[in-house]
Structures are given as C-alpha cells and as structure tokens.
C-alpha cells in the first residue's frame, strides 16, 4: 500500500488530462508521474532519508509528495514563515535529506554536508526518462511527516503512514470522479495537512489542481475566473476576505463555474457563511473538520445540511450551520474528563477512531488508547442525530473555581453586541478562583462600548461566573497566517499588563 498508487492509477486512466497548473508550468497526469519518477531517482541517488520542501505552492509540491513515495522515504514540507533558526533546527531533525526550495527561501537554509539543496526549477526539470518504479508495499511506512506548530516546547513531528492516507483517500474519494473541465484552486500552503490532502484527493479524482503561491481575495477570484475553477478549499479568514471583497465590489461574484466550496481549519463565523451562501447561491458549501493527526477530514457538514439549516424554522436544525457535521469514514465519541462516554448534547472531549487516524508522533509514539481512540483535544458535543458541535480546544478552557468555562460561548455573546468586531476570551491566573475570565475586544470602526456594558450583556445571557473580570480594547487580535487566533499571545499580553 503506497500513495504513489493513486498517481499510477490517474496516469493510467487519464494520462493526458492536466494535473497541475502553477503560473506558466502545466503538467498532465502522465507528466506528473514522469516528473515524480525522475524525482525518486534523484532522491535515491542522493542517499536522502527524507524529502523536504521549503517553498510556497507550486508544481514542485505534488512532484515531491509522489517522488518521495516512489523513492520510499517520507515527505516533509516545512513552514517557510518560521524564523531562520527554527527552520534550520527542523532541517537538522530530518537530515540526511534532499531539500527542494525556491529562490526566496534558499538563503534561509544553513549549509550542511548531509543536506543536498535543489532549486525548485532544477527539481522540475530533472530528466524525465526514468523507468517505472514499483512503489514499496509496506503499509506501515511513513508517507508524510508534518511538524505541528506546538504552542509550547519543540514542534512535534506527526507521522502519517501510507495506510492512513490511503484509507482516507480510498474511503472518501471516488476514483476519477472529476469531469474533464473540473479544477480545484489550492491556496492552503503545502506544509498544511489540507494542502497535502488536496493533492492526494485531486489526483485520485483526476481533477486539475490550480496552485496559487499565496492568498489574496482579488487574486483568488481572478484565478477562479481564468481557470474556470469548479472546487475550492478555504480557511475561514480567506472566505471572510472574499465575502468582504465581493460586497465592496457590489456583490456580483461572476464565478459561474464554481460548484463546490469546502472550508475548515478553524471556526467559521456564522455571519460569514450566511453571507457567502447569499453571494454564491449556486455553490455547494461543505464544512470539513479534521486534524493533521487524522490524515485530514473526519467530519463533514454537507451542502444539503447547509441549505436545510439556512431554510429551517426548527432551532435544532438551524443551529447546525455552526456544526462541523457528521463523521465521515471514522467513529466519533465524546467523553468526560474521567474517560466516561457521554450521551448526545453532553459536552466533553472529542475522541476519534478509524484507519485514517494516525495519532502518532515521532519519538513520542502512538497517542491512541487501548481501544484505538485518539484524543483530539478539541471539546464538543454531538446532537441527537450525530452532528458534531465544537467548543474550542481543551487547553483553552477556563477553570474558574472548579467550573469549566468555554471561551466560545462568551465570545458568541460578545460578538452579538453591535459595536464588537472581534473578541477573544482567555484565562488569567487568579488568586481567589484559580483562573479568571478575561476578554480582548476589537470594536468596529467608529463604534463604542463600555466595559460595564459588555459585562452586563454577558451577565444577562449567561451565568455571572461567565462575566469577564478583565476587558481590554485592542486595535486587532493576533492571528497566524491561516487565520487561527493566537490565544497564548493574548494570555501573555494580559499577564504582562497585570
């Protein structure tokens, strides 16, 4: 079992079809396979035990993923936004390696005897006359290693084995499901699990991938029109920016080819998805919830769920627009702190089980329990029909006087205030209660609200224990490049200010 089989099949069935478009570069599935085989020979000749990519999206990403698979070594895409010392520390952990990089990032890499650097253009122009390689069969071999952006300590190396990725793709994607004219635009960076699953899913569906180096709303819309893009995946911040851009331009999206838009990677604001559904009425929206350690998506809220929730008068159906949907090819269970399985509507910790779940880090080993369940460290609950609602990270829960408080419910209330544009609720150390509730609030331009007024709003909607003892007003909140809020930075700012 080897992910290279996905490309073998696409090249066999639809070799002439365009696989990847990136700037002026265009490869058919047959060409992608030839380039990956040439890359595999280069990897084997180098003696590398890892293939590393330090670059933005380009055709080099799929070539490197499959090249590493044919060569039988793990593929490791690195976050090019890390600092130079961080990048070199990670490279040291995967040497000896063959490292593919573009001109913009080459200068970040310290010279080492055990790391061969190859320029992206040279990597894509390797002589494509390599004989077919029968990929190794070991399903337990590591296909992809991703360094997770841990909030404390050194980044953990999550490993995804061929069997995890293959069961995810074969279990959720229909081979050659794409039409000849279909295309997906890929804007998530190659070091994100969604960037990897986009390549694997598209390859197996025989869908054309349009790779964009970065995300910017106008550029994304232009690429969708130019390439007649039918499918896209976005993180919530990206969709927000597209919605804002379309509203500023008068609301006419002019995306007749766009049929399916999936989103994930963070909490989607309800206002954003509602507005997006109005601006793009012909588009099928899918909310995809997944983690690196689960080979990507584990639950989906599909297009029919979106439309039913938006049109329903039943509050239990309406609220599903805020859920991440039902389990895909996995089982999901909610447990309390003591490990007891909980029933529907009972909030606790989210556990997941299934063949696509790796739940494993290099050096730390498997995090699965005796029953094969992986603790996602997300909090949430299932409704009576199995829809999963997430409630933040377990680490973000505020424990005030022994009571567990979810930042999300307080944030949702504050966001209902007409003057509030953005908010993050975090825990602050407190002598009396152990932890206290603190809120960093961004007001809308020209709007005003007092601390007392906001505290009163929370008191009126929730219990008094939920009222933030500390509220500060900020110009903006810190986010990472994929739109994930950096709560630890906010906590630190509060701690520094006290």
């Amino acid at each position, binding site marked *: 079992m080897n992910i290279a089989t996905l490309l073998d099949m696409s090249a066999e069935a639809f070799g002439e079809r365009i696989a990847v478009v990136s700037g002026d570069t265009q490869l058919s599935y047959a060409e992608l396979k030839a380039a990956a085989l040439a890359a595999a020979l280069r990897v084997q000749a180098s003696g590398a035990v890892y293939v590393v990519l330090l670059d933005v999206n380009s055709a080099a990403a799929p070539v490197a993923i499959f090249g590493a698979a044919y060569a039988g070594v793990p593929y490791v895409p690195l976050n090019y936004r890390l600092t130079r010392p961080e990048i070199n520390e990670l490279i040291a952990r995967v040497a000896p390696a063959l490292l593919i990089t573009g001109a913009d990032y080459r200068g970040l890499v310290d010279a080492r005897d055990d790391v061969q650097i190859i320029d992206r253009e040279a990597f894509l122009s390797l002589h494509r006359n390599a004989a077919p390689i029968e990929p190794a*069969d070991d399903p337990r071999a590591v296909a992809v290693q991703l360094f997770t952006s841990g909030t404390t300590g050194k980044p953990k190396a999550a490993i995804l084995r061929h069997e995890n990725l293959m069961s995810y793709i074969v279990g959720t994607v229909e081979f050659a499901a794409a039409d000849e004219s279909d295309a997906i635009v890929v804007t998530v960076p190659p070091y994100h699990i969604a960037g990897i699953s986009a390549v694997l*899913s598209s390859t197996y569906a025989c869908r054309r991938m349009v790779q964009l180096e970065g995300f910017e709303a106008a550029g994304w819309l232009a690429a969708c029109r130019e390439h007649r893009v039918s499918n896209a995946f976005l993180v919530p911040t990206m969709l927000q920016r597209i919605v804002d851009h379309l509203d500023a331009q008068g609301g006419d999206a002019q995306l007749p080819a766009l049929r399916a838009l999936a989103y994930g990677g963070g909490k989607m604001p309800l206002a954003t998805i509602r507005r997006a559904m109005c601006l793009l009425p012909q588009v099928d929206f899918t909310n995809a919830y997944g983690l690196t350690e689960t080979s990507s998506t584990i639950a989906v809220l599909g297009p029919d769920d979106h439309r039913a929730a938006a049109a329903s008068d039943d509050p239990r159906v309406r609220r599903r627009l805020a859920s991440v949907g039902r389990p895909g090819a996995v089982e999901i269970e909610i447990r309390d702190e003591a490990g007891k399985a909980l029933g529907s509507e009972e909030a606790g910790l989210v556990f997941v089980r299934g063949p696509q779940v790796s739940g494993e880090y290099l050096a730390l080993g498997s995090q699965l329990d005796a029953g094969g369940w992986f603790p996602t460290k997300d909090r949430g609950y299932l409704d009576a029909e199995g829809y999963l609602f997430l409630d933040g990270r377990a680490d973000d829960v505020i424990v005030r006087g022994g009571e567990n408080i979810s930042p999300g419910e307080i944030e949702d209330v504050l966001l209902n205030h007409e003057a509030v544009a953005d908010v993050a609720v975090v825990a602050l150390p407190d002598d009396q209660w152990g932890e206290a509730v603190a809120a960093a609030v961004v007001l809308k331009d020209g709007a005003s609200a007092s601390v007392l007024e906001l505290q009163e709003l929370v008191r009126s909607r929730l219990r008094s224990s939920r009222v933030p003892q500390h509220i500060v007003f900020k110009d903006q909140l810190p986010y990472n490049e994929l739109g994930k809020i950096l709560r630890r930075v906010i906590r630190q700012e509060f701690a520094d200010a006290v």
Partner: protein
Amino acid sequence: MAMVLKAGARFRSAVCDAQVMVVKAPPGEHELHCGGAAMLGGSAPAPEGLSLDSARAGGTLIGKRYVNQDESLELLATKGGKGTLALDGMALDVKQAKQLPSSD
C-alpha cells in the same frame, strides 16, 4: 493455491492486465482468482499455458472497489483488465460508492 490476504497487499492477474490492492480481507487462507486463474503476488511469474476463461471475462474496471457477499473482502482495482475477480470460486461485485461531499 490458497493464500493469506493482507490489507495493502497487491496482486495481478495471470491472464489479463488487471491489478488489485487489498483494502480489507477476511482472516485465513483464500483463493483469489481473476479470469479463472489464481492471481499472482509480488514478482511471481505467470505460469505458462494459462489463458483467460471466457466464462470469467466480465471485466475489472480501474478505480472500482470489489467485494464478496458479506463485504469481508474489499479490493481496489488499480489497473483494469478483462477477467472477472473471484474469491473462493464466487465472483466479486462492484461495491456501491458511499458518496461523501468533496472536502478537499
């Protein structure tokens, strides 16, 4: 020739172009055939003198998943061919795909 089928293992037809990967398999030893002849694992050479049995030439399609009656066996056809897949003498059926919304 009965053999153990393990998830991830690959087999090829001795009498046509079909190739399969085992997605899921029942325990124990089984006879896996295509086109009337035992399928081959690894780099085992095809025995001489075999030819496609015209009564077992319903075809195998690339990308389709094939299952036995109780779905304890599931194969993915990684290459198409003329032969019909069979486990212990019973022809396999195409598994109806579970349609999931495209998420990536």
